[in-house]
């Protein structure tokens, strides 16, 4: 499949991500499928960041680390990315700003010198050098300016006609400069279709899932890369009658959400690992009080502050075991944009149906990755609010925590007459009063535990993709790179079966065992050091992997790398 791959590099603050975003949006408008991927440092300006856009006629599986085109906004970017440009590709840079005498360019790559800064200034805005670069890029790709012009309109319209005008000029300047001075073209012959699509990031997809699920309250405290769930929803607050509170800390945020859940609305909080660590005690509260709440954790690499702007998958065990004591909870991990929407909506359903805390794990790679999406992505979402009542028949005998076969009791919320009760973090009776005696304690402990059983039963079986005797187990955003790897391996004659665990805790042991019953080898790919999913797998099935692939350096895995690693292992088997 032909695919356009562009990378833009430069210091933070130079508009790197907006170049990638606007290109992706332009490709989307032209009926192509685009994704982005970005890497930035923990600084607000300076340092080195880069973002890539990948576009094709069919959905793009995952990003890659070699490109047709490098847009270098500084010298460092040339040095760091020049060898990632494929033969036949090009490097755009500002020849009036960057001296390249000491740089050895790779062979077979065209050096496109474009005076970005000067052209931008001439267009009327020094800051628009990145727009000039986009114009140059389009010309080298032998592409038209139309879609990008409309994208610039969308982006800058709220700043007024004049700003739009200047940006259009900057775009044209870059475009024309290449047309007039550079002959080389990268011709990918991609043809978009007629379907209208839209572009959103993983965190926007989660926000969309929240909106469709009927969220009414999000309380959160900023933490990269989780913050954009809060900020995206905050902007939509008045459109969807949602209240968003930037709380004083994560402990307040999660307790606010739990209070709201207790009082009958769908509420959530979003954060990253350090923030979720602070929510530990409250998770146990929700477990004991049987209050629905959804916690989003966009993972980044730890330990501790770690690598705040990078990606990782090392908070799975924490999600499962934070909070004192044993209590039912659900841990879900999303693999792509569509799952961000749907599993988010399901998270709210499970939270309310089982009256439990649900932790949804995403990760920086997916959280920030933009993707062209179909407009039906948020269709087929059913709302299930569980055992709620708005009228209590026998108030004297209303047992909020009544024992029941599935462990779930009928729930009244403040405002419902006759349903008054105390929800308490202490062990309690079916009525919600303090209980310390063994039979009463046993009744409640076992009632709650029955929810683990009924929930496990209700969860869908794990997903598999493809067939093969070598089974590759993955979770989270490794999904797309792994699917890409599957294709690469297939082309090389290796057929693997991918097993993706979305609902990880509680563990649906029987269903998992069924999926791996026939196998030659079991391979785990994880974005953490200790092999967290491996441990969980072994704990529940007694089966340890035959081979482990782990990447915990903060960068997303590529399909190529995964394919290579798996091929190495499979080759060693034979």
């Amino acid at each position: 499949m032909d695919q356009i791959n562009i990378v833009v590099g430069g210091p933070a603050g130079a508009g790197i991500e907006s170049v990638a975003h606007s290109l992706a949006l332009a490709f989307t408008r032209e009926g192509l499928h685009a994704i982005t991927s970005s890497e930035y440092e923990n600084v607000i300006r300076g340092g080195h960041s880069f973002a890539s856009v990948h576009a094709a006629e069919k959905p793009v599986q995952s990003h890659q680390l070699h490109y047709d085109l490098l847009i270098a906004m500084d010298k460092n970017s040339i040095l760091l990315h020049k060898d990632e440009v494929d033969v036949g590709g090009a490097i755009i840079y500002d020849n009036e700003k960057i001296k390249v005498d000491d740089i050895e360019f790779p062979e077979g790559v065209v050096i496109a010198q474009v005076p970005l800064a000067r052209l931008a200034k001439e267009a009327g805005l020094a800051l628009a050098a990145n727009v000039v670069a986009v114009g140059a890029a389009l010309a080298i790709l032998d592409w038209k300016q139309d879609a990008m012009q409309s994208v610039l309109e969308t982006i800058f319209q709220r700043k007024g006609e004049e700003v739009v005008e200047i940006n259009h000029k900057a775009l044209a300047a870059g475009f024309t400069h290449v047309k007039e001075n550079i002959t080389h073209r990268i011709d990918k012959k991609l043809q978009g279709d007629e379907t209208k699509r839209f572009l959103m990031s993983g965190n926007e997809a989660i926000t969309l899932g929240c909106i469709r699920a009927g969220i009414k309250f999000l309380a959160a405290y900023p933490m990269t890369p989780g913050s954009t769930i809060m900020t995206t929803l905050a902007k939509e607050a008045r459109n969807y009658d949602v209240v968003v509170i930037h709380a004083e800390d994560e402990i307040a945020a999660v307790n606010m959400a739990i209070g709201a859940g207790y009082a009958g609305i769908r509420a959530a909080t979003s954060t990253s690992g350090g923030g979720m660590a602070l929510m530990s005690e409250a998770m146990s509260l929700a477990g004991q009080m049987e209050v629905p709440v959804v916690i989003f954790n966009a993972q980044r690499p730890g330990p501790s502050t770690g690598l705040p702007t990078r990606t990782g998958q090392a908070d799975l065990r924490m999600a499962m075991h934070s909070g004192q004591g044993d209590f039912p909870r659900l841990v879900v991990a999303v693999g792509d944009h569509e799952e961000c929407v749907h599993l988010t909506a399901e998270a709210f359903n499970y939270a309310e149906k089982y009256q439990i805390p649900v932790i949804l794990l995403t990760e920086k790679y997916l959280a920030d990755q933009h993707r062209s999406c179909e407009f039906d992505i948020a269709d087929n979402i059913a709302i299930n609010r569980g055992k709620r009542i708005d009228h209590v028949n026998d108030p004297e005998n209303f047992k909020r925590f009544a024992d029941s076969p599935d462990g779930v009791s009928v729930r009244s919320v403040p405002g419902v007459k006759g349903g008054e009760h105390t929800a308490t973090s202490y062990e309690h009776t079916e009525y919600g009063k303090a209980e310390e005696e063994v039979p009463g304690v046993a009744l409640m402990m076992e009632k709650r535990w029955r929810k683990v059983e009924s929930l496990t039963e209700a969860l869908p079986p794990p997903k598999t993709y493809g067939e093969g005797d070598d089974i590759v187990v993955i979770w989270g955003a490794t999904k797309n790179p792994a699917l890409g790897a599957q294709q690469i391996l297939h082309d090389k004659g290796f057929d693997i079966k991918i097993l993706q665990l979305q609902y990880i805790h509680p563990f649906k042991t029987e269903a998992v065992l069924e999926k791996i019953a026939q196998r030659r080898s079991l391979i785990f790919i994880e974005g953490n050091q200790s092999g967290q999913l491996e441990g969980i797998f072994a704990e529940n099935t007694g089966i340890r992997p035959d081979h482990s692939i782990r990447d915990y350096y903060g960068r997303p895995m590529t399909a190529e790398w995964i394919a290579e690693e798996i091929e190495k292992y499979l080759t060693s088997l034979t």
Partner: protein
Amino acid sequence: MTTPETTLTAKDFSTPNAPSWCPGCGDFGILTSLKKALAEGGYEPHNTVVVSGIGCGSLLPYWVKTYGACTLHGRAIPFATGVKVANHDLNIVVNIGDGDGLGIGMGHFVHFFRRNFDMTVICDNNGVYGLTKGQTSPTAKKGTKTSSTPFGSIEDYVNGPALALQMGATFVARTYSADSPGLTEILKQAMAHRGAAFVDILQPCVTFNKQETYEFYNANIAKNPLETPICETRLDAINFCLTPHEQIPLGIIYKEDAPTYEDSVPQFAKGALRHQDITNIDASAFMHSRS
């Protein structure tokens, strides 16, 4: 608030179980007055929520026949804030302890009053950590000797009313658990007040606080009339709270009409969020704006 169909009495807010506090504990007085104030204020059990943290006083929700929640130590305020967001028609009373609300819960206490949600925070102020057997609380005077500070505490005590005032509380009062009429009246006014109210309740812990006993308070309190607040401006009120007095002044220290948090959020104007239909929300605008 909807008006109750029939007039309720304190009894209608009682639960069958007897409180487990020590005989003579000041918390009994708070419970009694709260139930009275709820009845006299015309509140109904199902439209009232009493949210507490963890501590002796925080067991109170068990014994009030309304909706209630015994949450986490220090977290009553954020939990209650969530309840308010879900249904801002409810009358919400947040019952904090001095350790609970001013120790571990201090961050929430301070930030809460910046928001001016229409809720009432009452503090069972007994100078000790009662439920964990009498350690020094943040309101204990410097030099207090307990099991956690056997050589005397080194910290200055926290002045709850002054702090609430500085952070923007729009109703601040101090009262005494054994002054039943005063306490009841103040609770009524605090609940009726539109905005974030703070009521500091001097509450003898008969088991662990051997300094601030009933005898001590009876001899050292000065009641002010409850018709008008003691101070007219916030700054005066802060000064009043921070200035040493011969006798501990009780009464409504300050009161102010100001827009509540709810007033500033148009989402609330359509009624309690919890009544909104969520079955089929149309999110196409969200998607279109990204196309």
